Structures are given as structure tokens and as C-alpha cells.
């Protein structure tokens, strides 16, 4: 595929790998957090870690939107389908996230809930138009990438005066999550999670631009390199981060210039700010309550806010005690550090959210990389 295969060229990968081997300093280690699940997926799917020098470690961050969705939020969506009789529409990989009482949206569907997988917020809107006698709720999740389409759906529903459409808004913000990690005791005080820099998000940055990361680079002295989701993008970003570390720089650099600029998509930002406002606090799975880290629908569009429309009260629900998702999402632990990884918790029966989406650190390691944990014979 043109514009894709160029970024998956094994020959170029070998060249970057060689450059990295030459440039890393043997007497130190490098830890970089890839914030986005898309990067985690690419690293696992293409075997990028194998091409990196042994002293360069990738830490999987909390950038998988499915993984950071707290149980209580999924419970609300299930309640809307099972108790309020609403048609609940959501993105594909949200369907399997474990909720309370052994449920998930997929299992709630099997119990009779009208839960539908959609590919965009606009599809949910269309379902509302086609079912005027039913309440249709779009369970909106995701970072800045998926927020503008939700805003557009609400704006269109408002213009049309659609009376049966609302949004259960769970959109979260990337910069607040990065700040939260940098402020966490593990990183700041205990030093248990060395983070030398960030591979910055791809799609998110198309919307918000590279500007919002400058604060981290300056304030926390952490270099950020924004990178695309192709494996060569990731390798190039790692090389750029290594160079910054070696030279003692902490800047925002942009590897993904083919799609990202400093300001981002101003039209999308304006639309989002018309429809949404900041929530003072929002619970993230694994990170707990994070201040000013999520969006809610402005009072002017209250009719389209499922939380107000159905008078939903949020009830936080604790994760399974044996599950280490929280620590894994903060980069404190690796999937294999979790006692239930690959035994009780598998992609078929995910206990924690990191095992659900292929972008989750546990699912990515289980699906693509677990052969590395076991010595096997693989003679051709």
C-alpha cells in the first residue's frame, strides 16, 4: 500500500537499528514511554523491541482508551441498555471490557440488551434517526482523536432537534494523563519508573498539535517525540529520543510531520470547545481520579447528555484485587509481573482492561510476544 508500506520497510528498520546501536551509550539505560495504545500495538505486531538495543526499554503507557475506561462507566452503559431499554451504540473493542457482575457489553447484549457496534458517532446518530420511538445512546469513549466526531454528532442532533439521541460522554485528555504520570509518586519520589522521554501520540496530535507537549519538555525536562503509528515511525522516534537524551536536550520534536503541526486542527478544537467543557475530575482505570482530565457536555446541550437525561449516578467500582492493570498502566509493572497474566486473565477471559483491546499492554504481549517468555525450539 502506498504511504503505508514505506513505513514498514525491514531494510530501513535494520539501518535505524544499526544507527541506534552506534549511538546508545553502553554505560546507561534508556526508558521511553509510548503513551498511545497504537504504538504499543505496532511495537508488538512488528516485533520492534527485538530491533532495539538491550539497554533501550519501552514502557507501555495508559494511552489505550479502552484500557483506561473504569468499570463504573461501563456499568452505566449496561444499565442504560438493560434497565432503561435504550439502544446503546459504541466502538468495537469497547464491547468486551469487563464490567461488574461478570458482565461486559457483549454479555449484556446476550442478556437481551440492544447494544450495537458502530464505526463512528455518525452511525449512532443514524440509528437514532431510524428508531424515533427508541432512546439511542452513544457510549463515547476515547482521547482527543474520537472527540471531534462525537461533538459533530451532538451538534447535528441539536440542529435537527433529534429528541431520542444522547451521548454518555467518557472522552479523556492526553496531556492531563501525562502530567498525572509525571506527578505520580513512583516517577517523582520513588524513582521506580525511570522515564527518560515520551513517544508522543500520533492521531491525538493531529487534533491538538505538538504545542501542548512543550510544557512537559520544559517543566519536567522530558523529551517528547511525536510519532506516527507505523513501526518505522516508532524506531525513528526512539532514535530521536536517544539523541536528545545523549545531548542533554528536552524538547518537543515531531517525527510525524506528514500529519502533525504545532497548532493541530483548529476547526476540530473549536468544535470540541463549543460542545464540551472540562470535568473537574474523572476516574481513570488504573490511575484513579485525575483532575481536569476529561470532558463533559456543556449545559447548552444538556438534552444530549445521557448522564443528565437519565439522571445517572456514577458509582466507582474497584478492580479485581489480583489484577495489576493499574500498575501496568502507570508503567510500574510489566504484564508478566502480574500473577494472573496468561493464566486466569487471557484475551478469552479478560479480568483486567489491559487484556481486552489489542492495544492493551497485556493483550499485545499475550498475542504477539509471549513466545519470548518461553524457551522454544523454532528451527526452520
Amino acid at each position, binding site marked *: *500500500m502506498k504511504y*503505508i508500506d514505506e513505513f*514498514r*520497510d*525491514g531494510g530501513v*528498520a*535494520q539501518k535505524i537499528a544499526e544507527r541506534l546501536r552506534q549511538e546508545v551509550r553502553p554505560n546507561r539505560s534508556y526508558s521511553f514511554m509510548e503513551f498511545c495504545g*497504537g504504538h504499543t*500495538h505496532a511495537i*508488538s*505486531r*512488528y*516485533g*520492534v*523491541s*527485538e*530491533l532495539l538495543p538491550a539497554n533501550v526499554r519501552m514502557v507501555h503507557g495508559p494511552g489505550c*482508551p*479502552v484500557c483506561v475506561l473504569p468499570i463504573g462507566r461501563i456499568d452505566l452503559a449496561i444499565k442504560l441498555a438493560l434497565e432503561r431499554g435504550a439502544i446503546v451504540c459504541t*466502538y*468495537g*473493542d*469497547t*464491547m*468486551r471490557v469487563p464490567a461488574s457482575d461478570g458482565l461486559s457489553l*457483549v454479555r449484556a447484549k446476550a442478556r437481551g440488551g440492544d447494544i450495537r*457496534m*458502530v*464505526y*463512528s458517532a455518525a*452511525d449512532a446518530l*443514524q440509528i437514532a434517526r431510524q428508531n424515533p420511538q427508541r432512546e439511542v445512546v452513544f457510549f463515547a*469513549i*476515547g*482521547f482527543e*482523536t*474520537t472527540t471531534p466526531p462525537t461533538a459533530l454528532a451532538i451538534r447535528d442532533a441539536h440542529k435537527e432537534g433529534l429528541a431520542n439521541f444522547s451521548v454518555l460522554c467518557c472522552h479523556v485528555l492526553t496531556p492531563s494523563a501525562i502530567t498525572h504520570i509525571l506527578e505520580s509518586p513512583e516517577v517523582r519520589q520513588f524513582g521506580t519508573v525511570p522515564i527518560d522521554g515520551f513517544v508522543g501520540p500520533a*492521531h491525538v496530535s493531529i487534533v491538538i498539535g505538538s504545542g501542548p507537549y512543550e510544557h512537559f519538555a520544559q517543566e519536567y525536562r522530558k523529551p517528547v517525540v511525536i510519532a506516527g503509528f507505523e*513501526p*518505522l515511525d516508532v524506531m525513528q522516534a526512539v532514535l530521536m529520543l536517544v539523541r536528545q537524551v545523549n545531548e542533554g536536550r528536552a524538547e518537543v520534536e515531531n517525527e510525524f510531520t506528514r500529519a502533525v503541526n504545532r497548532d493541530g486542527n483548529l476547526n476540530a478544537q473549536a468544535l470540541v470547545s463549543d460542545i464540551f467543557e472540562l470535568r473537574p475530575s474523572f476516574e481513570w482505570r488504573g490511575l484513579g481520579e485525575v483532575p481536569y482530565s476529561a470532558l463533559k457536555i456543556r449545559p447548552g446541550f444538556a438534552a444530549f447528555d445521557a448522564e443528565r437525561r437519565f439522571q445517572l449516578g456514577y458509582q466507582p467500582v474497584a478492580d479485581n484485587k489480583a489484577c495489576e492493570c493499574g500498575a501496568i498502566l502507570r508503567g510500574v509493572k510489566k504484564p508478566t509481573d502480574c500473577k494472573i497474566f496468561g493464566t486466569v486473565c*487471557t*484475551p*478469552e477471559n479478560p479480568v483486567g482492561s489491559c487484556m481486552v*483491546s*489489542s*492495544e492493551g499492554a497485556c493483550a499485545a504481549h*499475550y*498475542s*504477539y*510476544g*509471549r*513466545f519470548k517468555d*518461553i524457551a*522454544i*525450539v*523454532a*528451527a*526452520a
Partner: protein
Amino acid sequence: MSIVKKDYIRPLDIKNGRIDMGHGAGGRAAMQLIEELFLAAFDNDYLRQGDDGAAFAIPQGERMVMAVDGHVVSPLFFPGGDVGCLSVHGTINDVAMSGARPLYLAASFILEEGFPLADLKRIVESMAAAAREAGVPVITGDTKVVEQGKGDGVFISTTGVGVVPVGVDVSGRNARPGDVLLLSGTIGEHGVAVLSQRESLEFETTIRSDTAALHTLVAAMLQAAPGGVRVLRDPTRGGLATTLNEIARQSGVGMLLQEDAIPVLPQVDAACELLGLDPLYIANEGKLVAACAPEAVEAVLAAMRAHPLGAQAARIGSVVEDPHRFVQMDTRFGGRRVVDWLSGEQLPRIC
């Protein structure tokens, strides 16, 4: 089946008619549906006898194979096919993957009250055409009608019987380290063609389902290298990845694939990229994967490439020793990864 004089009853209104509960009640309406639709389409000596079952002779000295397959595809019509031809091809392929020559099919229809007769006729005729083309007649069948809301239009279950020629031993248990894995052509077309017709996903695509009966391709492969083909399997639901994991598990071996060697149409690759899906897990209905003894590979591959359904055949990897029965793949990028079982349904990624 008895013969009802057509003069005394009004013919089926195929254009505007719909299935009602009477069509499943075993009375005159049911008889009329069978005669005017099913018998007309599938017409052959066995069906015309009108018994509840069909008696046929058993070839001497050969092993028989029986396979059954249920077809619940949605939508019922998709680019390149429909549930009708799919139900014929799928079952013929299940029989053929045992190395057998398919002989006969049986078909069971579960129809939903209210289903348009015109659509049913289209499906049945497509099924009949597929059976004729394959030379595998439908010799017995059954029809039931369920109330509206209790079905999804049409469910078709087909059973196939066939015979395994003497000396042929093909099974998922037979793969051995050193065997070479062959794939008959590009993967993912059926799944993407069906997906492209689903609600709200009408992307502009020319991708057609690859649905096809593979028994003549199988016969050519078996003939090319007697005893050389050890495993045959058609990678339908769950795609190539799941099929290879099944074989690895059955045979107690591992596999090592070369990503570069697996043929995928650029349109399929692009559609999967867009939806965050992996072509390795997408369904096929006209492809097969084989494990062959190393000395038989060239002959089998040549026979495959000489057949229209195997023109794109490729050597995609090999069977290796591995007590953990992992299927692994050397990626085009230069890394190595596990190609795991599909977990549940493959769901599109959010961004």
C-alpha cells in the same frame, strides 16, 4: 412428496409473496413451496422420488466422509455471492478437505415467517447453480418455518457426503516438522466483501467474495503427489491464523510463517488497515491451506498453480517442532511475532 395438480392451486407468487407459517406446516402450501421452488431448482432423480431420504450406492472399498455446515451469514447477499452458493461451497469444501471426492448434498432450510419468496428463489437458484457447477447434487432436504423474529431470514444447513480414494490419508493430525505450508491464493476477500455490505460500512470497494468449491483443486493436488499432501484445511471463520493454530494443535507441532510470502490483495490490505483488522484473521470461502511433505512440494505447487483456483498459490512457511504449538511469523519488518488464536470476535480498534 406427492404430485399436486397445478391446475387446482394458484402458483406461488414469487414476486410479492412471503413465507408464512403454512409453508412449514407440512400441508399443501409446504408441498407447493417444495415443488415450485426447491424441486424446480435442484431437480434430480433422487429428489424426484419424493421420499424423506435419498438412497444411494456406497462405493466399494473406499472410506466415506460426511460433513455438516450451518450458514447464517448476514447480509444474505454480498458481492461475489450469497448464502445459497456459500452453503454449497462450504460443505463441498469441508468434505474435500478430508481428501474426499464429494458425491451428494442434503440441505435443510429454516425460513423466517415474512421472508420474501423472491429472495428465497434467488438464494435457492444460486445454490442449485453452485451444486450443478460443482457436479454435487442436492438429493434430499427439509424445510421449516419459524415465527417472525425467531430467525434471521434464512438459515441453511447443508450436509455433504463423499468418498476418500484408496491410499489417500489427509487429516489435521498429520503435519510433521519439516512439512511445507502451501496456501492456494490471496486471503481475506470473503470477510471483507461481507463486511463491506454491513450497516454503515459501505466503503467503495470492488472486493468480491472468493466463495468457490475446491474439490477439483484438491483432486489435482492429490494426483500430483500421491501421499505427499498430509493436511488440507479451508481457512473459513477465524481466517488463516486460526486454521493454522487448529492444525498445530491437532498435530502437536509449531509453525513458522513468512509474512512476505502470504498473498493479500492490496484492496483487502487497505480495508483491513482502515478498520484496524488483520487479514490473517479474516474469513475465506474459496481458499485452502496444505501441509506437504518436502519432497512433494514442487509437484503439488505446480498442480495448484495450473488450476484456476490455485493460480496464486504460494509457499508460506513450514512446520516446526514446538511443544508449545505456537504459530509464529517472521514479519516483513524483520521481527518475529506469535500469530495467535482469534479471541472471540475480531473487533475493530477504536483509533
